[in-house]
């Protein structure tokens, strides 16, 4: 079952672009959370709105996305997330 072969990670950000506290935002400053899933084939990340009072991520509020395929791009330098939005990628890769 592929869903059992997934590793998750996440990282918070205070804003959509780099600023002085992007590395280590305090809880109250967190506005965006990047959630990643990894499989043997790819890493998929969505950066979504985050409410630090409620500790809630809003997956309808997507700020950005990343998608890298292990076989063709092991160093994760070629983000093909936008390609995936055009429906050119198999549906099975989508969340």
């Amino acid at each position, binding site marked *: 079952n592929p869903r059992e072969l997934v*590793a998750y*990670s996440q*990282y918070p950000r205070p804003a959509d672009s780099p600023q002085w506290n992007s590395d280590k935002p305090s809880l109250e400053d967190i506005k*965006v959370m990047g959630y990643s899933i990894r499989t043997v084939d790819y890493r998929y990340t969505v*950066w979504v709105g985050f409410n630090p009072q409620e500790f809630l991520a809003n997956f309808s509020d997507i*700020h*950005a996305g990343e998608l890298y395929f292990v076989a063709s791009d092991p160093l994760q330098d*070629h983000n093909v997330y936008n390609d995936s939005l055009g429906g050119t990628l198999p549906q099975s890769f989508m969340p």
Partner: protein
Amino acid sequence: TDPLNVLLIIVDDLRPSLGCYGNKLIRSPNIDQLASRSLLFQNAFAQQAVCAPSRVSFLTGRRPDTTRLYDFNSYWRVHAGNFSTIPQYFKENGYVTMSVGKVFHPGISSNHSDDSPYSWSVPPYHPSSEKYENTKTCRGPDGELHANLLCPVDVLDVPEGTLPDMQSTEQAIQLLGKMKTLASPFFLAVGYHKPHIPFRYPKEFQKLYPLENVSLAPDPQVPAGLPLVAYNPWMDLRQREDVQALNLSVPYGPIPADFQRKIRQSYFACVSYLDTQVGRLLSALDDLQLASSTIVALTSDHGWALGEHGEWAKYSNFDVTTRVPLMFYVPGRTAPLPVEGEKFFPYLDPFDSVSEAPEPGMEMQNGPSFLLRDVKLDYLVKVVVLDRPCRCKERLELWPRVTVNFNRKGRNLLKLFEGRGEEEEPHVRG
């Protein structure tokens, strides 16, 4: 039939740039030797690539969204839930639990006490020389002392004439000696500080990595298609005096190529220095004849970008910052039991002539290696206390996977350590 002891080694900011993970440049003979007697996981990942959330996550077995710790400013027991920790679980099951060095991240996130007394039987130990880590102890070309990023030192020349990880090793060895005489099993967690910045290490280790042998990252540019939100500006690096002197532009840099090489050189030197400390610790375990009765686990809180994607820090979701080394030595399972009188973990000097890193004892390429690293640390509990009854309601909630294994008397996990296919027991993966 006696309970096994546990030695958990936690390294700070160590990516799997090690001989046992196929890196030909790095001299890490002692960790490689441990790997050769261990189950080695090729694809283990941290939950969040920053110290406090990652450590609380893997020590409680819960995600940051559950511990509600994404920064450094809260203590999960009062902020999110009174979640037990792995050492606490051992303590409650009759183990003497001890913490040396940086196990929990210090400060509010561990209640200014390293979660003591919940997690630890005795007050955690911190090396006295820790306080000099960020002070001006690096001799610059001007002859003055600076708070630099690159900080190879003459150990005799630094305050107290020692470094934190050296002190932690000595303390851990002393504790092992004491535990040898006690009847109770022990859980000893040793947290090493390097290769975390600043790269403050005995200067002789620099010679292992001549600059002409040190390459740049294969992809030192910020990728064109990287969303702005995904990039981190590695502000902590910029605060060091020698980096400030480079007058880098914020937030993207870049760092001049020759300085990039020096950063990588010092990171690698710190890894080899760290390896010698692990080697001394494991050699002592051997000398005390504890190698046949002690599980050894080694991992890191997260990785570190060495210039990949134009980044020089953790603080991201890239694989280079989230992937961690992870290995378990289980006596008699991942390697044959040591023969009496034979050195099982002899100290190996990284300055000795280079040889190929030995093959891992057992290796997990796919399958469960893509599960969260936290699950792997549950293995410790599964292997060691698997026959103990689970009576506590809170514990049932905390360790659902363990509860399953209590009922099954851990046979699934033991199969894994015995090298039998876990596909026979697919529920193990869940």
